[in-house]
């Protein structure tokens, strides 16, 4: 791998050309525009291409093997990859653990784990959620006890996205039962092949195994597999995800769904129906107005300004808009709404695929209900 150019010094247009050229040139022979997540065995070629070119961790500093992109350039990269329909890789290492280790990890941890993420040797899973806890992430019951030089872990994690593909998982574990629930949590790193770790896949509504549960039964890991201080795992985990919080509200998902809606309506003969048109233009305005709102946040990122709790508005509106578009699809698809597979083998025409893929967007990453609670209190200053 040769040294990367200074992408931030490029003009936006130049970097956009670079990114577009990169994906068009290097994207391997794997699916594009997939509505569901690809598994490691499918998506690995793309991960490895990105890895080989030094493009796998766009936001990491260059000295740690990243591209060092600023927010504006990172957005362009995402836009160009999405425009091409490039699959999303197993990115918990690049997106979550990496930045977290850079902030809270020891030098030894950084030296050991970061290169293995960059190379694709380690694929990480996230172990935050537990059964019965839902959006209440601090309700951690999985416990870890220090026994000499080892943590002994017992408990369960769930909703680990593509966890069955991972060889490592980071978890929140309770290390002090006696204090307030946020105060007794630690952040631990666990190899998936450790003795006592078992995995059970969870099929989603699309009948795909996108998630898994992970069980820990007297699992032992060395004492230094902790990130941050003991009992300080909550603040480690809550470390800002930076512009990820903005990008999750990007209008692309809805814009792409809108163009599929048009095709479904055309196929069903609804495109010329004035009643359908009226609803379509209303949704189109929603997408365009969301784009304008999204851009105000991107501008803030570009200017290096703070992103506040109000950014939740983007995710709430985007995810609900995506769902509303998918619901109109189901209506215009008529009897074909019930088909399990795409009509005419064309994924773009498959209303149910969009409908189902839109469901988790208002549940994961902070449910709409939780985010509205936060907005009401933190932004509207309404009382508890």
């Amino acid at each position, binding site marked *: 791998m040769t040294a990367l150019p200074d992408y931030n010094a490029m003009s936006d247009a130049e970097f956009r050309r670079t990114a577009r050229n990169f994906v068009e040139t290097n994207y391997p022979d794997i699916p594009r525009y997939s509505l569901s997540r690809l598994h490691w065995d499918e998506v690995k070629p793309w991960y490895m291409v990105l890895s080989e070119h030094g493009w796998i961790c766009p936001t990491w500093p260059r000295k740690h093997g990243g591209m060092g992109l600023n927010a504006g350039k990172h957005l362009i990269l995402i836009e160009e990859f999405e425009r091409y329909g490039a699959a999303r890789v197993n990115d918990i290492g690049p997106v979550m653990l990496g930045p977290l280790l850079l902030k809270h990890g020891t030098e030894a941890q950084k030296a050991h784990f970061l290169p293995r993420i960059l190379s694709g040797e380690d694929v990480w899973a996230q172990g935050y959620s537990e059964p019965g806890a839902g959006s209440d992430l601090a309700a951690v019951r999985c416990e870890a006890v220090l026994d000499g030089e080892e943590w002994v872990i017992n408990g369960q994690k769930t909703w680990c996205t593509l966890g069955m593909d991972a060889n490592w998982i980071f978890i929140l574990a309770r290390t002090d039962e006696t204090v307030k629930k946020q105060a007794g949590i630690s952040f631990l790193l666990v190899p998936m092949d450790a003795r006592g770790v078992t995995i059970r896949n969870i099929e989603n509504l699309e009948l795909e195994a996108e998630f898994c549960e992970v069980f820990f039964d007297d699992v032992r890991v060395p004492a230094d597999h902790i990130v941050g201080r003991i009992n300080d795992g909550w603040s480690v985990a809550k470390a800002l995800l930076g512009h990820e919080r903005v990008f999750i509200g990007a209008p692309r998902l809805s814009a792409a769904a809108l163009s599929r809606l048009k095709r479904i309506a055309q196929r069903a003969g609804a495109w010329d129906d004035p009643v359908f048109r009226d609803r379509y233009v209303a949704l189109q305005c929603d997408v365009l107005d969301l784009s304008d709102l999204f851009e105000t946040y991107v501008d803030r990122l570009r200017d290096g300004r703070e992103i506040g709790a109000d950014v939740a508005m983007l995710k709430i509106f985007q995810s609900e808009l995506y769902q509303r578009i998918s619901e109109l699809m189901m209506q215009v698809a008529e009897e074909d709404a019930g088909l*399990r597979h795409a009509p005419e083998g064309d994924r773009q025409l498959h209303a149910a695929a969009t409908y189902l893929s839109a469901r*988790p967007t208002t549940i994961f990453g902070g449910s709409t*209900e939780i985010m509205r609670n936060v907005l009401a209190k933190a932004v509207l200053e309404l009382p508890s």
Partner: protein
Amino acid sequence: MDGSMNEDWQENARMIVESARAVVPADGALDRVRKARFDGAGFDRAVMQQAAELGWPLMWIGEEAGGLGLGLRETCALMEVLGRGLVPEPVLSTMMAGALLQEALPETVMTGEAVILTAWQDVTGALDWQGGAKGDLLIGTKVNLRGAVEADLFAIVTDAGLAVVPRSAEGLTIETAETLDGGTMDHLHMTGVAADFLPCARVEAVLQDATLAHSAYLLGLADRALEITLDYLRVRKQFDRPIGSFQSLQHRATEMKIQLELTRAAIAATARRFDTGADAATRAAGAARCKLRAAELAMLVAREAVQMHGAMGITDEADIGLFVRKAMTEANLFGSPRQQRRMLATRLVQEEAA
């Protein structure tokens, strides 16, 4: 309608619902339904046999023709129970065949030996049924049959009359596609199938009856899905409180309940009107209105049920998903909400012109 007639239908409905327990477990267990998914046509012939033994194919055959001669109130009571249990068997399609064929319904169907389905719809997204016949041959397409790949006979509706043909009939091919609920949605392609055509003047009426009955199925589906969701809201805790205590979820739950009771009332009143001699315009508008609300109810409850179940709601292992996938599969049958509103709007124009 006098009091005794009133009691008659209620007693009949009670007995039919009671008999449905043979097919729908009283405790709401869905193991059988779950198992039947994605296995051939997604239904169980043994259950169709039971249905025949219970006389369901005879539901809409007049007593004088050896049938049960029951009305829409009894039918809707049954369909609601079947909907609650997500029963995948094509009971309604069989009842339609009975209603259309009357005494000509094949003996094998009555005994449960054979499964007959009604093929009426000409194209997806419209309610036309007149196509399919040319001269004395069946030529054309009938679309959107559930489970045709495992049926034995088809009652094919055309403007030339009714034809009963076996699945093996020469010139008949079936194009099949899997549906979300684990069944199939099938089109019959007929390239000159020899057939006897029986005259039938009741097609519109039977389609209206079936639309209403299907609405009752969707009502039952939504009712049970709401029950399951309410149970979940009562039990499931977050931040140390049952999530059903959160006011925003409570208010959304009341909206589902109101829509449910509107649907129930509309179906009950429309079924009564059907049974007590409504005119053609009242029947058409009533069936459309019930179907419109029932379909929107089913999709509303599906959407909210997933959301209120949180992450559990998007797993296949939670039973609520079975209701969601069934609603997605069935809501647009017998005319989607869009079709129904369009039809009602067209009637409005026609009424004014008249």
